[in-house]
């Protein structure tokens, strides 16, 4: 049967100064379809979504909605045309409470509440300011707000990237049902497993151009990757191979020893150690205390109990500078937290060099350029738009946050979900980099929201649940289902049907309330 | 009556200007010298008529016996002064008139101030030529009064033209920059009338080696010094005593003691000291006081009205300080 497309965009182009974010993109979505929009970092997916929903205007292109040419000039107009986006960044007004946010957009409250419950958030207070709500929950609220007005076309830009597995599953479920109900969903994600489980077709963008539309059938991943990466495919494959041959580094003396660490009510009694030359993974569902663990180790917050030892010496951090002096560097998951967006790549990488009072004097420009350049090359950062970091694509921005500490030669790197929203090629590069760092005797603590990454990168895996350390796996034992069970607080060996798109029962069967 | 028996409130709305500072010091010195004042209650800040109303009402709340006020505007504080009189408080306005009929006024005659200086200047210019007219702050009532006097003199000299009219805002830096800019235009002028920002003008003429045309200013210590020290400078200082504040206190005390003056309004007419006549030179010499802050008027006392000594006004201490 041939249904006419709900949404049909052709020849869309968008220039930012000299750089073309989109050259010739097209996208056609049928009713009842969940349509994946795929592409490497910087391919222009978000830009296309913004154009379709009137957040920015295109330089060229034609957009038909139900066969009619519509000129969508603002998000409000898109909303009237039945197009509702959930952008890559949260769109709730930070200083307004949720209820006011709903009023602002004219969203009916009761359906919203229903959707929020449906999406797995049980205890939402509509009077909370958006600022005080954790990122993952905000993303879900954004989605619920869009669902509540029953849009014809829902556009989800990396909806699941910042979500822990349990919330991501709920989202996938709900999205699938949208498709089944005859509405259309445009779904952007870098996670193939989600695409495979959810989508009917995929449009692939490369360098701002639509390079193919494929039906999602088993085994189509290879084809998509080829389309996405073009010539970059070879490199990615090499990277994948090199990661698999991981070195089981000999247990060295502990670099960092954490004993009975406690942070308020969020984290209690966590003890583990981290050796030189080791990548230790941290796995946890959203909000189980991993943020506090990283922040305490990075010197951003003061622990309320327990000790941290570095090279056998007990340390007390009252400012990140103390941690940095002990050789511990922190790469936050949210790039906007780590980068001075209007400054150049070079200045961002060189930032730690100037931090200390004694380095406030004249900068040795040549030496700095050499150091920065070698870090850029090591991470293969695309520096075409290096004058301002904000012009880089998300993935390249992420690399800059890591490059800073490579340049500063930090001995221990705390990476908090560094592959969030990053394309497969870049991911491989980051895995490889982390392994290389370990190979050079550095130690890495690596939190990830994607379980499959654990096996690719880590030597050991620490699982945290309800603020407590519940298990430590050697990498050989750490298959996804075992990790998932542990992450839900279930004891090792217990059988529970948990996996992507399975229906997990409430996670409260664990140890702590 | 050494202990004193009155509390006097003072309200002034320009702070940080030499003339006003001298006025306040004169009030303090006179209150001290009179021996009749227990306490001065001074509201002295930069504000407008509405702010002065607030200050006057606060002084009424403080139950002072008399209020001496330098009005931000003659009409704008009428309501406050009326309330004060109703509350049995003696009200004396100094420096400028007020429209409230119950208030007593002891004022410098601003219109006469400008007229006197301008007339002398135009005479020096031989009754013809171009004058650079440097006014005070646009929109201030003292400035518009002076403008009336200036225009009156101008009408008497039909051949004198205003080459350029600027507002200095009574700011030294602005006036100097305006003078220098004007000199750079090369427009010939025959005289300069200033509304009291005078010594920087002479400075600007000297610095840029421009011809020294006659200059009229006020009796500020700096300018009075220049009139006798700068070679080739012909000029005149018109008195505009800040000590009028002291006179206001005297008047208030007289009224409190039951000695009402014959009229509601007492005008203190300005004098002109020029360095073109021997008589004027003698007056300038007598008045010159290099120890005073250059912004302070040298006429630190008004005969018959103030009784303090120079040391007392310079010490700037009121009763109880």
């Amino acid at each position: 049967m041939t249904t006419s497309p709900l949404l049909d965009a052709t020849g869309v182009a968008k220039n930012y100064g000299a750089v073309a974010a989109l050259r010739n993109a097209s996208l056609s979505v049928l009713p009842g379809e969940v349509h994946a929009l795929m592409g490497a970092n910087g391919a222009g997916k978000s830009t296309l979504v913004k154009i379709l929903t009137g957040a920015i205007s295109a330089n060229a292109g034609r957009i038909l909605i139900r066969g009619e040419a519509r000129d969508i000039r603002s998000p409000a107009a898109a909303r009237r045309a039945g197009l509702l986006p959930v952008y890559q960044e949260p769109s709730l007004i930070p200083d307004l409470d949720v209820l006011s946010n709903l009023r602002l957009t004219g969203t009916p409250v009761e359906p919203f509440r229903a959707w929020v419950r449906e999406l797995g958030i049980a205890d939402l207070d509509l009077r909370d300011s958006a600022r005080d709500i954790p990122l993952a929950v905000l993303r879900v609220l954004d989605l619920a707000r869009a669902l509540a007005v029953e849009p014809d076309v829902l556009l989800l830009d990396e909806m699941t990237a910042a979500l822990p597995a349990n919330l991501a599953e709920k989202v996938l479920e709900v999205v699938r049902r949208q498709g089944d109900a005859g509405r259309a969903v445009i779904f952007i994600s870098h996670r193939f497993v989600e695409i495979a489980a959810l989508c009917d077709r995929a449009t692939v963008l490369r360098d701002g151009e639509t390079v193919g539309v494929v039906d999602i059938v088993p085994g189509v991943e290879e084809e998509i990757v080829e389309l996405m990466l073009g010539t970059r495919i070879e490199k990615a494959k090499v990277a994948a191979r090199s990661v698999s041959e991981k070195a089981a580094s000999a247990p060295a003396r502990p670099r960092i020893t954490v004993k009975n660490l406690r942070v308020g009510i969020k984290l209690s009694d966590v003890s583990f150690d981290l050796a030189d030359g080791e990548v230790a993974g941290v796995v946890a569902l959203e909000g189980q205390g991993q943020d506090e663990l990283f922040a305490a180790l990075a010197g951003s917050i003061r622990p309320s109990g327990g000790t941290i030892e570095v090279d056998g010496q007990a340390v007390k951090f009252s400012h990140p500078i103390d941690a940095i002096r002990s050789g511990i560097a922190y790469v936050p998951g949210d790039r906007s937290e780590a980068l001075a967006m209007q400054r150049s790549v070079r200045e961002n990488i060189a930032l730690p060099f100037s931090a200390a009072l004694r380095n406030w004097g004249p900068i040795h420009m040549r030496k700095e350029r050499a150091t920065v350049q070698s870090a850029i090359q090591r991470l293969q950062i695309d520096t075409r738009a290096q004058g301002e970091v904000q012009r880089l694509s998300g993935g390249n921005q992420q690399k800059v946050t890591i490059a800073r500490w490579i340049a500063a030669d930090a001995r221990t790197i705390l990476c908090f979900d560094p592959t969030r929203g990053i394309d497969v090629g870049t991911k491989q590069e980051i895995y490889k980099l982390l392994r290389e760092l370990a190979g050079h005797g550095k130690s890495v603590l690596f939190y990830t929201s994607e379980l499959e990454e654990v096996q690719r990168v880590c030597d050991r895996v620490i699982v945290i649940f309800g603020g407590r350390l519940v298990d430590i796996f050697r990498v050989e034992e750490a298959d996804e289902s075992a990790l998932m069970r542990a992450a839900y607080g279930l004891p090792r060996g217990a059988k529970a049907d948990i996996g992507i798109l399975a229906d997990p029962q409430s996670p409260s069967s664990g140890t702590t309330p | 009556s050494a202990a004193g028996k009155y509390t006097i409130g003072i309200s002034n709305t320009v702070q940080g200007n030499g003339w006003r500072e001298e006025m306040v010091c004169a009030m303090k010195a006179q209150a001290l010298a009179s021996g009749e004042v227990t306490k001065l209650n001074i509201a002295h800040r930069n504000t407008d008529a509405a702010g002065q109303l607030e200050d006057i009402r606060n002084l009424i709340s403080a139950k002072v016996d008399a209020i001496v006020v330098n009005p931000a505007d003659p009409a704008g504080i009428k309501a406050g002064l009326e309330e004060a009189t109703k509350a049995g408080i003696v009200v004396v306005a100094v420096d400028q008139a007020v429209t409230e009929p119950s208030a007593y006024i002891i004022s410098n005659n601003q219109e006469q101030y400008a007229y006197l200086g301008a007339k002398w200047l135009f005479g020096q210019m031989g009754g013809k030529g171009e004058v650079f007219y440097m006014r005070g702050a646009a929109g201030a009532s003292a400035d518009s009064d002076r403008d009336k006097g200036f225009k009156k003199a101008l009408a008497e000299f039909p051949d004198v033209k205003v080459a350029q009219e600027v507002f200095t805002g009574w700011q030294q830096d602005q006036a100097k920059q305006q003078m220098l800019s004007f000199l750079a235009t090369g427009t010939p002028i025959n005289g300069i009338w200033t509304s009291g920002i005078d010594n920087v003008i002479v400075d600007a003429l000297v610095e840029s080696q421009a011809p020294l045309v006659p200059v009229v200013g006020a009796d500020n210590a700096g300018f009075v010094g220049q009139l006798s020290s700068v070679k080739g400078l012909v000029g005149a200082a018109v008195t505009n005593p800040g000590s009028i504040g002291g006179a206001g206190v005297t008047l208030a005390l007289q009224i409190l003691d039951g000695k009402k003056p014959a009229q509601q309004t007492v005008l203190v007419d300005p004098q002109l000291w020029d360095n073109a006549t021997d008589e004027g030179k003698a007056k300038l010499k007598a008045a010159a006081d290099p120890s005073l802050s250059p912004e302070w008027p040298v006429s630190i006392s008004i005969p018959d009205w103030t009784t303090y000594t120079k040391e007392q006004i310079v010490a700037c201490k009121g009763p109880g300080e």
Partner: protein
Amino acid sequence: MNHFLRRQGWVSGLFALLIVLFIVTKLIQPGYGSGDFGSLARAVLPYAFAVAAQTVVVIAGGIDLSVAAMMALTSVTAASMMAGASEEYALFVVPFVLAMGFVLGALNGLLIVVTRVPDIVVTLAMLFVLQGAALLVLGAPGGAAAEWLKAMISGTVPIPGLPDAIDAWLPKALLVLIVCLCVIWVPLRRSRLGLSIYAIGSSELAAFRSGVPVARTRIIAYALSGLFAAMGGLALTMSTGIGAPIPGPYLLASVAAVVLGGVALGGGKGGLLGPIVAVFVLRLVRTDLTLLAIDPNVTAIIEGLIMVAVVMFGAFITMRGRQ
């Protein structure tokens, strides 16, 4: 929740401070009574409107440096129109001047939106323009005000059912202030427009993406600011009976009171109540300084210290709260 509490906490703290100051005043001057409170209310009036004008734009994420100049212009316009005119003519003058403030405020907003020049520069430029216009309207202080306008803010209104002792503490000026602010602010706060103003102040991008017409909202915020400033200008004319083309000290005072009142510079947070209470606090401090006959040269130091100390204290509390 916690955020909400914090803001209300700040306003309650200010209220407590105000009450303490009243007690202090009564101790300094045991005769301080309802009449003196009436004076306070009248002194507060122009400041309160200035601060309301500033509050609206600060909440919308901007700043308005032209508040005082706008007050001067509206004041001289009103005063010069009423000079020599009949009492009834003022019935036309008041809405005219309010409309003028609204339109000129909207012009501020329009210029910001159209030229994309930062608000601080646009309103700085407008400061000069409005000042110049005020000088063209009246070269020196002058003009007049209708008697009924002047009477509107002096004395008290007998409210039926209330004992005179309480009536005496409800000066007309205070009622005028409350009515004028509430008529605009209360419906605004509850409306979608009000939400939009908070939204663009909090996050312009998020507001745009939520479908808020950002440009229009910004223009309206500035227009409301102009309207409040025009009320302030009228208040000046009502209390002094004249118009003065030189702006009074309302610009810096308004910014200070906005911050003291718990409205964050940067936008999105706070309300109107806090800044208004802050204005009362600042005026009452001035009264106390006069009552105490403090050396006038020291009063500037004290006022500066109070401002810095209160804001530092607030910052200190928030820091403690965060830990």
